């Protein structure tokens, strides 16, 4: 996307809060928080590993920030980054056992580690609150000249812009990292880890850095969630929610950073569109997912290319569209390294 396109997209996001009903503003806030979660998750997948513990990392940040503000009396502005850093530190510790595994084993290992953490929130009522979690979590406040301390979580528009700013920072960080030498090395590890290791790439270090950074941003997303809702509990970070993250990333696509963002935005809109169906909603949601995976196995981000191919095919009645199993076009290959 061009710089002009990005500016236009940002302008749309800035205008949105003034165009939608108040309750839909909450949907947008949670959608933005989910964008942070999905983009950070995709960064981890660049190293070739799919984790089932990412949502729990979000929970670590949420619980950490909640406890730091409620029990230790820290300001939200200090507590949330500290909790994100703590989440990264925890991910570093988990990297030692987890990165002894690969593929399916890593998937299961990450699930087990995540459940161990999540169940400890359930089990230990002091300090985690047990199944009921922590309530009455303080909101972030900013000092204003005339108004004094203003609670920005009480004003959804203010919180929306605050979250949007964090989202922009997140995207810029991960975008720049992916296009750096570090990002290219992650791609190399993803596709040819043995070859990468044979030329001196320290795979463990690269994977660990990806896990730590992705987890820290997930923790930050958790802090944003907890301080807006005023409550956290173990149910918010269970496997069911993790599956949603996987769905966002897979349906959106993982080839570019736009994929998970598209996944979160489109599926949030779809979910809201199906709300009137109540208990039938999962059926339709599932059908949409199946159809997407069937027709767009590389995710919604590949839709423009597929549409072009279908259009050409329909116009010329020549050969059917290029299969997704074939070599991807140059635009879908790993991005070039920045100068």
């Amino acid at each position, binding site marked *: 996307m061009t710089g002009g396109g990005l500016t236009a997209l940002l302008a749309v996001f800035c205008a949105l809060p003034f165009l939608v009903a108040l309750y839909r503003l909450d949907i947008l806030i949670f959608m933005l928080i989910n964008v942070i979660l999905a983009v950070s998750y995709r960064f981890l997948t660049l190293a070739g590993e799919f984790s089932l513990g990412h949502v729990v990392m979000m929970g670590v940040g949420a619980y950490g920030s909640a406890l730091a503000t409620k029990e230790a009396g820290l300001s939200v502005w200090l507590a949330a980054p500290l909790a994100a850093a703590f989440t990264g530190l925890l991910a570093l510790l988990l990297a030692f056992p987890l990165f002894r595994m690969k593929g399916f084993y890593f998937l299961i290992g990450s699930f087990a580690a995540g459940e161990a953490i999540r169940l400890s929130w359930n089990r230990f009522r002091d300090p985690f609150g047990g199944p009921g979690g922590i309530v009455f979590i303080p909101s972030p406040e900013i000092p204003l000249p005339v108004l004094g301390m203003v609670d920005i979580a009480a004003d959804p528009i203010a919180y929306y812009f605050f979250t949007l700013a964090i989202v922009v920072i997140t995207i810029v960080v991960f975008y720049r990292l992916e296009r750096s030498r570090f990002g290219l090395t992650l791609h190399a590890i993803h596709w040819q880890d043995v070859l990468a290791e044979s030329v001196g790439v320290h795979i463990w270090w690269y994977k660990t850095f990806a896990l730590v950074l992705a987890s820290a941003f997930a923790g930050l997303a958790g802090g944003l969630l907890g301080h807006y809702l005023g409550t956290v509990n173990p149910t918010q970070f269970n496997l069911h929610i993790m599956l949603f993250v996987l769905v966002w990333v897979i349906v959106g696509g993982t080839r570019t950073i736009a994929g998970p963002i598209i996944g979160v935005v489109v599926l949030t809109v779809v979910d809201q569109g199906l*709300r009137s169906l109540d208990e039938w909603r999962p059926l*339709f949601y599932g059908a949409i997912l199946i159809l997407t995976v069937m027709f767009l196995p590389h995710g919604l981000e590949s839709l423009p290319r597929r549409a072009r191919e279908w259009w050409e095919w329909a116009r010329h009645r020549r050969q059917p569209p290029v299969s997704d199993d074939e070599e991807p076009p140059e635009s879908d290959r790993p991005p070039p390294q920045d100068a």
Partner: protein
Amino acid sequence: MGKKGLTRRQFTGTAAAAAGAVAASSFGAPYVAQGAEKVVKLGFLGPLTGEVAGWALPGRNACLIWADQVNAGGGIKIGDDNYMVEIVSYDNEYLADKSLIGAKKLVLEDDVKLVLMLGGTDAPAAVQFFTKQKMLSTTLLPSDLTPDTLYHLAPAEVHPLYNVTGVEWLAENRPELKTAAICAQDDELGWPSVATYLAAFEAAGIDVVYNKYFDIATTDFAPVVTAMLAENPDIVCLDTAYPDFVNLLCEQLFLQDYKGQIISCTLDFYGRIIEKTSTEFLEGLIFQFPDFDDPAMNEPHINFENPNEFFVNYNERFPDAWSAVTWEYPAIAEMWRLAAEKAGSVEPMAVFASLKEGGRGPHVFGDADWWGEELWGIDNALVGNWPVVQIQNGKATIVEYRNIIDWWNKHGELLKKHTAEQG
């Protein structure tokens, strides 16, 4: 794919047709009030999908039947006007964020006058919003109540306090029973319920010879039952176990040839348990949730319009789905109707004032007291009579209504002690 297989186009067509049919049947649901008549909307904010849906969806469906019954009877009479009732539901998936979105939608967009909730971990953010908006909301879990939840009521059940009535009845009617074994799942539903049963057994002079939690992920209940029966108890207490657990525990008790007394908080879908065991095995089991076709539901103190008809209608529309929570949501809606008619207004604060007037309210099992400050710091739980239900000839039968507050006044300290011990 070969020619005989399902092509992608065929699959798409079939899926779209199926989806369309389901959508049509869903959109064609009969509960939406029609025409230019005055309409009052009541919100239902609960998990209609997911693991906890069993505690909300039957209740939402029951509310639709209740609304149909009210509308068929001319609606709600407010002054000179008749209001038709419409139930607007929002599936919060038992998540706090979805709950907050749903709360704002129901209040700000749908203009509902009451929000019915299951309560629990999804509730705090939504209830804070309701309090700011001065919106009347209700829960089935009184543990949601705090001194800050000013307009959040627990008007149907006071779990697990009512369990004391079953133990008290048992002690009076079967004084030969002297020992009990308790098992419960290790979670927020199990802990307070165990404390309550321990207090009730102690008050009744019954020794608890076994009291252990089982893990929430347990699927094999043979060892749990074997360990309980090894203590040779006169009573086996299933605490407030989830419906599947009750089912499996009863099956194991049957298989291990237990012939003693069983007491449980719930006994959902007991017909299925009888199919797996026998009518004789379940005979005499005590629990707390009645069927609404029970003759005792027609007694004059009952605050529910046509309970027998409601039960028949529900079972016709949703066969084999009557459970502990089925009647609680419509019972709250019915209580709201009575209070709104008395207030001459459907506005939340007017109905709230009407409900709380004189410190008493129209609980489904008879007028009751607003109570709870000692436990939750606010008198927003409606507590009074509760039925003791017994299986007699394979059918749930109310054997007596007992007063919960009477028990509390005599033995409240015991409950406080055991609650503190259970953490």
